């Protein structure tokens, strides 16, 4: 069937069961939006217009993390697509599957510094798994199919497709193809034949599994790190069974939150720079470290040379280029976390490590923060939230102190419950991600935890929240400073607070009202809890501005590059 490139694109998105697109139109992507108009009209696809392309990209990312499906966003050429760049890098660092579709100037204008022209495939080369400039409309369908397959397979990640405007108008033959048949057709088939490990996780080597089983049997102090790979593979049930079977304490990284039931008696809390005492002491003392889907980032393995120095380190990862990248390991298994854990569960023998468990849990798994009666503390805010909001609330955070407090405090139960920018540390990620999650799960409670600095970076998305009636609850930890940076200045820079005072914030309640939402400024627990109840009941977006002290700190803290038990701030 002959149809335009724009229509082929829309049909290809339907092949991928895409139901929601986040985006922002512009000159070169007009043909696509014109086509989208009819697809929206009969309800086949929903488009969410954000206030800024960055918000669209974060929303697609949040959608992808919450659902496990591929998130999709649209942007126009030039500034439209460069506005996606931060969002793409965020998704890349946290391995979130998104497909960004951008349009460029027509092929006759390419390379002539035309209006709103930029070489976006060049710009995004180091932050995408793969990107394409589609110059021939006959290759469009094939390219879109390949892009989605790449985004979601193996170690997931962002893919960008750039389509010159004339290609969206030109016509080509389009044959519908069910998604299950994509892998055996077109360029994708050829690509898979020659590099299947990019698409399929390699089947774990059974001899390697056996070796790990032996190592587990021989170890007296096993310790597990649950990383983001467990969340991406949705291997939470298998991991839970394993830690209970071999009776091993387990720490959770920021990206791994939700990969293990937060209330499991084996969970020692977060690990690394702001890790719990129990986690950091355990990783230092263990004799076998099993890291699953964890890339030993510098926030976890602060000092690679002494990390888990008494242990045999075993790394399980789907991406072989992660093996031995940051920390030298003794044994590794390349494979999908879920598959590896299934095999381990078949073979591993039950164990009891009472003494070791007792030792690890003699340290604190949670930070005991000071109580106060005269002012609101971050802990009170989080406790009230945990008490009042449903347990399955999806939590999106921005980056900084509030992020660490929230992850330390909440017990995440399932993958996709926490949406946070762990690798790239993108301020302003939270609201966009919350929009994506709420769009995917209209009936779930979505909480956006943010700070006053982060919130100002993308608060214009409140307009999106209002227009699409997304009842996201925004809780702002308002301390009037860039809290995490100030914490570093206090501890490391001799209290020279260079440019971290944010004594110029707008009135967030008025801001919420200006966007047609409600808000409340709270200074004590009673006001906060009343506001939370109101937020739950009002049925639309809500901003709670929590006034907290500027010198609250995230504890414990280990300095960057220090040995993991050299606590700078203790709990």
């Amino acid at each position, binding site marked *: 069937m002959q149809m335009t490139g724009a229509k082929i694109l829309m049909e290809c998105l339907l092949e991928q069961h895409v139901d929601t697109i986040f985006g922002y139109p512009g000159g070169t992507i007009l043909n696509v939006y014109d086509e989208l108009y009819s697809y929206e009209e009969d309800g086949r696809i929903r488009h969410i217009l954000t206030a800024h392309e960055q918000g669209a990209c974060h929303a697609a990312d949040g959608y992808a993390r919450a659902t496990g499906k591929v998130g999709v966003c649209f942007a126009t050429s030039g500034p439209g697509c460069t506005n996606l760049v931060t969002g793409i890098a965020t998704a890349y660092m946290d391995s979130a599957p998104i497909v960004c579709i951008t349009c460029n100037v027509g092929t006759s204008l390419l390379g002539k510094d035309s209006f709103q022209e930029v070489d976006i*495939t*060049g710009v995004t*080369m*180091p932050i995408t*798994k*793969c990107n394409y400039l589609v110059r021939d409309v006959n290759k469009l369908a094939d390219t879109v199919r390949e892009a989605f397959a*790449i985004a979601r397979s193996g170690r997931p990640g962002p893919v960008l497709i750039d389509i010159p405007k004339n290609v969206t108008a030109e016509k080509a033959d389009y044959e519908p193809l069910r998604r299950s048949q994509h892998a055996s057709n077109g360029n994708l088939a050829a*690509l898979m034949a*020659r*590099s*299947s*490990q*990019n698409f399929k996780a*390699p089947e774990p080597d059974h001899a*390697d599994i056996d*070796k790990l089983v032996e*190592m587990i049997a021989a170890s007296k102090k096993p310790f597990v790190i649950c990383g983001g790979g467990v969340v991406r593979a949705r291997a939470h049930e298998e991991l839970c069974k394993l830690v209970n079977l071999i009776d091993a304490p387990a720490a959770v990284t920021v990206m791994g939150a939700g990969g293990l039931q937060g209330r499991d008696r084996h969970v020692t809390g977060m690990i690394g720079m702001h890790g719990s005492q129990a986690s950091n002491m355990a990783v230092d003392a263990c004799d076998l470290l099993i890291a699953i889907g964890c890339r030993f980032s510098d926030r976890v393995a602060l000092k690679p040379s002494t990390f888990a120095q008494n242990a*045999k380190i075993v790394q399980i990862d789907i*991406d*072989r*280029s992660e*093996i*031995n*990248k940051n920390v030298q390991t*003794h*044994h*590794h298994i*390349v494979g999908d976390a879920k598959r590896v854990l299934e095999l381990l569960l078949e073979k591993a023998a039950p164990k009891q490590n009472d003494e070791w468990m007792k030792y690890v849990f003699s340290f604190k798994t949670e930070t005991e923060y000071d109580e106060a009666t005269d002012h609101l503390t971050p802990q009170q805010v989080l406790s009230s939230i945990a008490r009042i909001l449903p347990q399955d609330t999806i939590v999106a955070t921005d980056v900084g102190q509030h992020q660490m407090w929230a992850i330390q405090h909440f017990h995440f139960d399932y993958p996709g419950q926490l949406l946070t920018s762990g690798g790239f540390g993108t301020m302003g990620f939270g609201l966009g991600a919350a929009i994506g999650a709420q769009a995917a799960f209209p009936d779930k409670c979505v909480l956006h935890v943010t700070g006053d600095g982060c919130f100002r970076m993308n608060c214009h998305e409140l307009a999106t929240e209002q227009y699409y009636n997304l009842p996201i609850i925004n809780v702002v930890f308002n301390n009037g400073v860039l809290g995490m940076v100030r914490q570093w200045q206090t501890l490391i820079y001799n209290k020279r607070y260079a440019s971290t005072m944010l004594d110029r914030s707008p009135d967030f309640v008025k801001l919420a009202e200006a966007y047609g939402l409600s808000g409340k400024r709270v200074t004590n627990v009673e006001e906060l809890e009343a506001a939370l109840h109101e937020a739950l009941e009002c049925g639309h977006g809500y901003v709670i501005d929590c006034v907290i002290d500027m010198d609250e700190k995230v504890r414990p803290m280990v300095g960057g590059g220090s040995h993991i038990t050299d606590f700078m701030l203790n709990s």
Partner: protein
Amino acid sequence: MINIERKTLAVLVDNEAGVLSQVTRLFSRKGYNIESIAVGPTEGANTSRMTIEIMATRAATELLCNQLRKLFPVHSVCILSDEAIRRELVFIKVGAATAEARSEVVQIANIFRANIIDVSTGSMTLTVIGEESKVEAIHRLLQKATVLEMVRAGSVALERGDNTINDETKEKGEFNYGKNVL
């Protein structure tokens, strides 16, 4: 002990626009300077082969190979052994205005089996094919005369024996990669 040495990588890639920059950017992103690179089409349709030399440790080179294998246009990557055949084509233009100077250049050229491919009143141009050490040696000797210009094509290399880069598929790379040593 950190043992940094010259490593030669052979990379088989799709012969498409943008692939060269994708591959070379990976090196700069990971902090490696490419000492030499030579690219050209191969016996197969639509593929190019790159021969890339870097200074790195064995472990770092292996990590780099794994990063390279992740790129979709890359078919296979291998680290060539020390015994592999390496050759480089070099043109050297030397100033030689007198008969005496010319005869000296001719002598040096003969010793190194270099060919003289151009002569003018003031200069001679030699072409040499050889390994790194040979190129350096002739360059050193010719510096007595005036070297006006020199251009090097970059090393190309091929493993000796029956092995080819096609044996080194990504699948196999996966299988061989740093087998567990515990």
